């Protein structure tokens, strides 16, 4: 799936295949885009997120059974992030669920739409309508400590101060859009679900106020605040507990696909746990061994060069008894230190919306 905004991007945009989607990885370079996102505000091409409409009389019952968080009373003015699990408790995807008048709209994580829709259809015991809306709708994001100001200039200042995960059906440039206060990076974040034929116009309008950031800058900023990046963290048959994504699962719900497996994993106390680490100049590959006191205690899940820290930043999955901040490990001969989350404190936490 190629981004519907490709024709609106600069000619030297660097694209990459992420799952089933071709997405812009970089526009002006990772460092510059990261700084814009953390210091001011950036517009994001989120067209690699698939939009799937669940409708019909049993839509809410279906979503309530398939999503790991409680969406029974999700009104059309709210959205919610949730995991979707399989029977074994493994992550199918991390979705943003929007309440709608006739059901729900699910937004997949980047490049995971095909897998998600296949899973939904395979589990459609309720006979709901499952419609891929990515042919007519797409998603743009705004994130950064001053993203609220951009919302005011671009659409409506009232929208900027919506509560977190509030949704408003609004109009931009005579076009109906779904506007939501969301966020992946710990900064002020907003999403706009817009008809594809108007997406390029909105993208260009946003660029009059902010610069664009690509997938690499977005994922770096997500990692820094320990926002799960499903495509990079769920490989290898790990469960929710090992990933540390418990907060995207509501175990107080009566029933959902994967609940028994998640509870069994939680109660067993077995398996490894994920912890952040930093150190060194080299970036280890996923799977690189993690040593503690000379003993192999786990492996690297992902690692990148952090612009904010000026050092390598990564996640390691290690023995549970060693999953704690402030420890010295060795990865490929390099000393690293485990970290306390968030690894970078978002500027938005100290900047009020005015």
């Amino acid at each position, binding site marked *: 799936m190629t981004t519907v905004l490709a024709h609106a991007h600069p000619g030297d945009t660097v694209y990459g295949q992420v799952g089933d989607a071709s997405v812009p990885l970089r526009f002006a370079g990772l460092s510059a885009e990261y700084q814009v996102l953390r210091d001011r505000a950036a517009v994001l091409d989120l067209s690699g997120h698939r939009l799937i409409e669940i409708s019909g009389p049993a839509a809410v019952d279906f979503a309530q059974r398939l999503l790991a968080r409680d969406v029974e009373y999700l009104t059309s003015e709210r959205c919610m992030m949730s995991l979707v699990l399989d029977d074994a408790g493994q992550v199918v995807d991390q979705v943003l669920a929007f309440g709608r008048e006739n059901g729900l709209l699910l937004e997949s994580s980047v490049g995971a739409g095909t897998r998600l829709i296949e899973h939904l259809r395979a589990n459609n015991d309720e006979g709901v309508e499952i419609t891929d809306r990515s042919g007519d709708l797409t998603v743009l994001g705004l994130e950064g400590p001053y993203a609220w100001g951009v919302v005011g200039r671009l659409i409506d200042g009232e929208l900027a101060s919506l509560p977190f995960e509030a949704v408003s059906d609004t109009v931009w440039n005579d076009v109906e859009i779904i506007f939501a206060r969301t966020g992946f990076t710990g900064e002020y974040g907003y999403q706009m679900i817009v008809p594809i034929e108007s997406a390029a116009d909105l993208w260009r309008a946003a660029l009059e106020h902010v610069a664009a950031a690509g997938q690499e800058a977005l994922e770096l900023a997500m990692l820094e605040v320990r926002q799960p990046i499903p495509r990079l963290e769920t490989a290898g048959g790990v469960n929710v507990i090992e990933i540390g994504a418990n907060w995207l699962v509501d175990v107080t719900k009566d029933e959902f696909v994967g609940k028994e497996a998640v509870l069994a994993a939680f109660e067993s106390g077995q398996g490894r746990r994920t912890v952040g680490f930093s150190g060194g100049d080299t970036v280890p590959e996923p799977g690189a061994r993690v040593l503690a006191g000379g003993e192999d205690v786990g492996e690297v899940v992902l690692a990148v060069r952090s612009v904010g820290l000026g050092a390598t930043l990564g996640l390691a999955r290690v023995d549970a008894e*060693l*999953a704690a901040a402030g420890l*010295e490990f060795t990865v490929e001969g390099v000393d690293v230190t485990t970290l*306390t989350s968030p690894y970078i404190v978002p500027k938005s*936490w*100290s900047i009020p919306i005015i």
Partner: protein
Amino acid sequence: MTIDELRAKAAERQQTCTQIKKMIVSRLDLEIEPDWITDDQPLFGRGLELDSLDVLELYVAIEAEFGVALYDSEMAVFGSVSRLADEVNPQLKAAA
């Protein structure tokens, strides 16, 4: 450090984190087991979804439980349970 020393150091942080989780669940009357909260889980907005009223409750609870006043602290101290552990048990940060 030997692996046993690392395990001991990790256990000290995990113990403080567990104490904080129990306090959060008890004070905010949450319907989850304390250990369901992970050390790195965000507490505000996403994550545990605490709001400003919850923070006021936690300020009081932390002072009562740990003898540490965080009233003038930046919101970053509530960035995660582990971050909060650094504040209520300064030995953890000093040893890092």
